[in-house]
């Protein structure tokens, strides 16, 4: 009864029509949407789209640091001239090899790490801290750390190899006391791959783990009831279900590795010779250090079609699988 009298009181309370009277732009979704979207679009247009087209324009001009204007249209001259340099073949080859090798190792380690982290175990938070460490270090500083780790004289890895009798005079790995990781073509490339895998593994793990924990547990229980073994479950259930996020993780990594010069710039510096040169670093060397802005832009533009093709292909595959 008291409830009903309270109800009566509530009904008597006059509902103010204020809400109904002040109808403004805040009630029109399209207008609100445009206002909310505009700042980001303007920013991206000004500082991504415009520079992107400026880069294309630069690559077709003869601009230099001393004379940065885009006055003289030189057509594809910059592209033709850089393609004919010795460094170009090395840079293109290494960019592709380093990215591809990183992807292979990264995918394997990511899936492994995700499978481990999908379980519950003691001290998981501590393990999280350890595993995310490479990503927490600024890339440039981490690269310097690796430079020291792979030092030609004082590398602790060499010391371990010497201590177990694998390195040094009269051993498998040769007469020298050191391996000179960054001083040899393929060791240098391997070192760059290792650093790349090391620093991107936490990120791809986070992305893929998001997909892994979203797989409903019933799927695994059903598979267990059906007597499927570990690898069968992994390849038949886990990996297909990860589909889109695994693709996204890989794409992110491609973008980071293929487009970034930091690791090479601070470790091998493209050397010895041009044997570990990559496109982004060479663009930097030419464009900024060498002052040939237009040629730098032309080299950097070589990156774009590769990235575009890889992304479109991967995203289309991923979304198609989603749709099916």
């Amino acid at each position, binding site marked *: 009864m008291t409830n009903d009298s309270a109800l009566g009181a509530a009904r008597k309370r006059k509902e103010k029509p204020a809400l109904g009277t002040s109808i403004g732009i805040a009630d029109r979704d399209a207008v609100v949407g445009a206002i909310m979207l505009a700042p980001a679009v303007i*920013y991206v247009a000004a*500082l991504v789209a415009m520079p992107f087209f400026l*880069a294309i324009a630069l690559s077709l001009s003869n601009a230099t640091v001393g004379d940065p204007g885009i006055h003289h249209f030189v057509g594809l001259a910059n592209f033709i001239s850089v393609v004919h340099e010795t460094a170009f073949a090395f840079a293109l080859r290494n960019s592709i090899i380093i990215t591809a090798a990183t992807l292979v190792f990264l995918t394997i380690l990511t899936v492994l790490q995700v499978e481990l982290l999908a379980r519950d175990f003691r001290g998981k938070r501590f393990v999280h801290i350890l595993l995310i460490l490479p990503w927490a270090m600024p890339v440039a500083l981490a690269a310097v750390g690796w430079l020291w780790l792979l030092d030609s004289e004082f590398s602790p890895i060499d*010391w371990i190899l010497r201590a177990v009798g694998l390195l040094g005079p009269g051993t498998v790995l040769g007469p020298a006391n050191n391996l000179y990781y960054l001083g040899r073509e393929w060791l240098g490339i391997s070192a760059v791959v290792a650093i790349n895998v090391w620093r991107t593994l936490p990120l791809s793990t986070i992305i893929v783990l998001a*997909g892994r924990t979203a797989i409903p547990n019933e799927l695994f229980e059903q598979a267990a009831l059906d007597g499927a073994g570990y690898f069968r479950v992994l390849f038949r259930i886990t990996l297909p279900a990860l589909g889109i996020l695994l693709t996204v993780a890989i794409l992110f990594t491609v*973008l980071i590795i293929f487009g970034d010069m930091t690791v090479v710039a601070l470790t091998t510096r493209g050397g010895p010779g041009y044997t570990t040169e990559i496109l*982004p670093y060479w663009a930097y060397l030419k464009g900024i250090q060498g002052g040939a802005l237009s040629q730098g*832009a032309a080299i950097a533009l070589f990156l774009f079609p590769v990235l575009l093709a890889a992304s479109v292909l991967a995203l289309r595959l991923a979304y198609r699988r989603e749709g099916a």
Partner: protein
Amino acid sequence: MRTTSLLRAIGFYVALALLCLFAVFPAVWMVITAFKQNIDLYDPNNNPFLFNLPPTLSNITFLFTQTNFPVFLWNSFFIGVVVVAITLVLAVPAAYSLARLMGHWGEHSSIAIFLVYLIPPTLLFIPLYEIVTLLGTANTVWSLILVYPTITVPFCTWLLLSFFRSIPREVEEAALTDGWSRIGVFFRVALPLALPGITTCIVFAFALSLSDYIYAAVFVSATASRTVSAGVPTELIRGDIYYWQALMAATAIVGLPLAVIYGLLFNWLVRGFQIELRSRAG
């Protein structure tokens, strides 16, 4: 049966230990180096993992008193915080707008946004260098604050777009019929529900701006305006002389606290990428 499960447990912990070792090995080496004396460090016959001579704090003292490291730290921190703020102001409303207000094409614009993210800094740094010079911001922290959102905004918009889309539409519609305007729904319902995504964005925006090397190295040559990423290598690598202990100390001082913070946020970061809210919806 029992032996297989035991083998599995051993395999699990061995694999975990190896992955942890891979992740932390360089860091361990950095920390050890940071406390070593010169004579100890530069003797190839010494066990590099042991302190053959007593550890010293002199490298760290050197780093903080004889170098510009504190300036770099402050610059990186300041830039990171401002970039995070700008990123959120630009990306959060944009993502919400695309997810809810711009109709069909807005909801399906994630691939287009991804393509923006795909344009790498290497491609943009030459024209952007011209732009920051033109704006007179070259050589200041503001040049970096201006350009870092080119990396962070597309990424965060992309992430938040799927996050906002995963919020059940009915929850927002309930708020609309409950008397809230679209703006009210955005602040009171959508934002709180997107918190894991926003946390992820904060961490990523900060980490990306801290990690950048290209822009920091190209746009800023004045020591007073340099960041940790660009400043530490240039300051502590003088020609052929590497101040290894100080370099390692600097890396560890930046990396280890961040690793702890990111590590504790690990589950939140994972949830940031989780496109389903599933059981959280009412």
